[in-house]
């Protein structure tokens, strides 16, 4: 029941927003729908707490410890982003960068995007997972090009083509998976694509076909995760789209794509019985982490900077999943959570910062702490959090990942340390003058929505000090499931 609400409500909302879009209350409606979705998710979570994993609607949907916290996270960040986007988009509209018609598109597509992500997370069907991922891409393409500037069109085109090609590879992988599964499960009953069934028989699936399928699936969904060298679309899309879109892309979509990869990894590793998938994840992850970190140095655009930071962090998470084992998986899941919260709050702050300075170029953003202390400190704290300063949660997860890597694969430690060090120096050097220093820019016309920023950062802080028992249990159960 909750699942139907979670999936149906955003779609209904999208329809409503498309019909009554140009009204003043559209932004509030958008936030309201997100809030009701969040409440439905809370009920779903309570159900899972009571009954454990759920299979619903002819086994087409399921919730287990691995996806339940991601669903909650998605709903939560979706809601706070909707809150943030109210004043943000109003300011954009006042400045003439957007008009009512485009705002209607924005609100409507925002909800479609949320629905697609929920579908991807909740579905038990690997085929539907693919369809949902593609739908998520399609709905965000128009969001990235919302400003209709040359740069945003270019970014959206790149995003579409690269992710389209990537997702086509993933489809081929899915076909191969189906081919292998059909042998064991048969065509009848349509169970051959259901993850729970596949997981039950994964030992019998033909290893060579599954190995090949994994390569395609990893490349396909990996493009959407933003793994190097398939990351090209990511910084552009993050920089040129509206800030709320950057926040949900970075905070949610990347997670969902990685979730798809890990689901596949569980099946494949069970089938081929070697660590090959894990090693591939480690390779891609390490490359992305190092690559992302070094590219941070060369950025001038604030949103691009944090786009590359997302590549780096997704790399670290992927690497941790690649190592496998309960501790690394635990750390990766934790890092997924804290990265999502921190990065979206950074984008909120950065969005308002560039609105204040009227430019996204970091050279033009100065003295945020004096013009608008909340924005300035939000950006500063967010950056410190993402850089892994204790006591924020990112520190805890990165520390766990590092120590595990040191024990399991010592040769990777220097690379990881270099990546983290370079990222630290690059981001800190760039954020510091933006926050401090002098400026004569006027403050924003609407009071910025910074409750989300501090709310996210507070949760991240809490996760650094204390992980609630429930969450820890989920992480532990999911870690066992992922194995490796």
């Amino acid at each position, binding site marked *: 029941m909750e699942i139907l609400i979670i999936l149906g409500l955003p779609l209904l909302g999208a329809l409503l927003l498309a019909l009554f879009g140009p009204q003043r209350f559209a932004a509030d409606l958008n936030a309201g729908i997100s809030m009701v979705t969040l409440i439905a998710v809370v009920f779903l979570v309570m159900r899972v707490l009571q009954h454990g994993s759920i299979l619903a609607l002819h086994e087409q949907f399921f919730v287990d410890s691995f996806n339940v916290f991601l669903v909650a996270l998605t709903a939560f960040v979706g809601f706070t982003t909707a809150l943030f986007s109210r004043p943000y988009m109003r300011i954009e509209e006042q400045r003439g960068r957007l008009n009512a018609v485009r705002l209607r598109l924005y609100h409507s597509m925002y909800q479609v995007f949320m629905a697609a992500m929920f579908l991807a997370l909740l579905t038990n069907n690997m085929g539907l997972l693919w369809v949902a991922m593609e739908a998520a891409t399609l709905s965000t393409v128009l969001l990235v090009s919302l400003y209709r500037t040359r740069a945003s069109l270019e970014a959206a*085109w790149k995003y579409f*083509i690269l992710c389209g090609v990537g997702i*086509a590879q993933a489809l*081929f992988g899915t076909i191969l998976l*189906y*081919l292998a599964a059909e042998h064991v499960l048969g065509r009848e009953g349509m169970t*051959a694509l259901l993850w729970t069934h596949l997981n039950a028989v994964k030992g019998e699936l033909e290893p060579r076909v599954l190995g090949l399928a994994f390569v395609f699936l990893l490349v396909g969904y990996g493009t959407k995760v933003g793994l190097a060298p398939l990351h090209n679309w990511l910084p552009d899309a993050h920089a040129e789209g509206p800030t709320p879109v950057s926040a949900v892309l970075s905070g949610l979509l990347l997670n969902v794509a990685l979730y798809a990869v890990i689901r596949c990894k569980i099946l494949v590793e069970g089938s081929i019985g070697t660590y090959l998938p894990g090693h591939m994840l480690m390779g891609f992850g390490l490359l992305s982490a190092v690559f992302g970190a070094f590219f941070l140095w060369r950025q001038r655009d604030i949103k691009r900077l944090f786009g590359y930071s997302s590549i780096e962090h997704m790399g670290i998470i992927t690497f941790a999943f690649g190592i496998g084992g309960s501790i690394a998986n635990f750390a990766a899941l934790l890092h997924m959570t804290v990265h999502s919260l921190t990065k979206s709050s950074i984008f909120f702050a950065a969005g308002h910062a560039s609105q204040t300075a009227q430019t996204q170029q970091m050279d033009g953003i100065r003295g945020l702490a004096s013009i608008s202390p909340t924005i300035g400190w939000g950006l500063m704290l967010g950056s410190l959090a993402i850089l892994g300063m204790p006591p924020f949660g990112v520190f805890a997860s990165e520390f766990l990942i590092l120590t595990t890597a040191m024990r399991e694969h010592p040769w990777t430690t220097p690379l990881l340390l270099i990546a983290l060090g370079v990222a630290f120096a690059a981001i800190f050097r760039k954020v510091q003058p933006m926050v401090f220093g002098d400026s004569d820019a006027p403050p924003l016309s609407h009071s910025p929505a910074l409750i989300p920023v501090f709310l996210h950062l507070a949760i991240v802080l809490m996760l650094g000090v204390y992980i609630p028992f429930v969450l820890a249990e989920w992480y532990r159960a999911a870690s066992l499931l992922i194995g490796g």
Partner: protein
Amino acid sequence: MHSPYMITGVLNLLAASLLLISFAMLSRRRTQRLITLFAWQGVVLFASTCLVGYRADLTELYYSAALTLLLKVIALPWILHRLIHRLGVQWDSEPLVNIPATMLVGLGLVIFAFGLAQPISRMATTITRNTIGIALAVIFLAFLMMITRRRAITQVIGFLAMENGLFFAATSATYGMPMVIELGIALDLLIGFFILGIFFFQIREQFDSLDLSNMESLKEE
């Protein structure tokens, strides 16, 4: 006439013509020719899907064949034709493509695809299993076309051709995915296509041309 040998033979022939059309697409510079070739690819897909459906006695495959006919032979090429007329680019041809080199790379890709498909073919039990390699080759060739061409419409045709290859792979390896998934894929394809159509107009409005070499400003300096 209806011997299984015969049907397999005809299917092989259709698969080969699919590959041939892919190569023809690589070697054409005119946008309009590409659209015609794309439509032909749809026709071949339709025929092969029908044949596989007949041979394997699966009604679902007739539905997906009908979907193919409707979408890929009639709707999409028609819209593409309308689109290029509206955009006034029907006589556009693509400069600076080294076609023999592209085809040589394509040949390498075909060999690679065949090698990759070997283990899959050995496992599949469908009558069309030998054609999986060809399906994979079609996917790779479409990918190659997208990489080498600089025009927006050509890239889209490459994208659609890639989808054709995937569809063929699904029919030849597994007699097609479950119908729900198939419908979802078709829907995604259609929506994606419409979004691209909107894009064409936006791009032209901003850049006065559909040449993507204008769109290279977002780089690391």
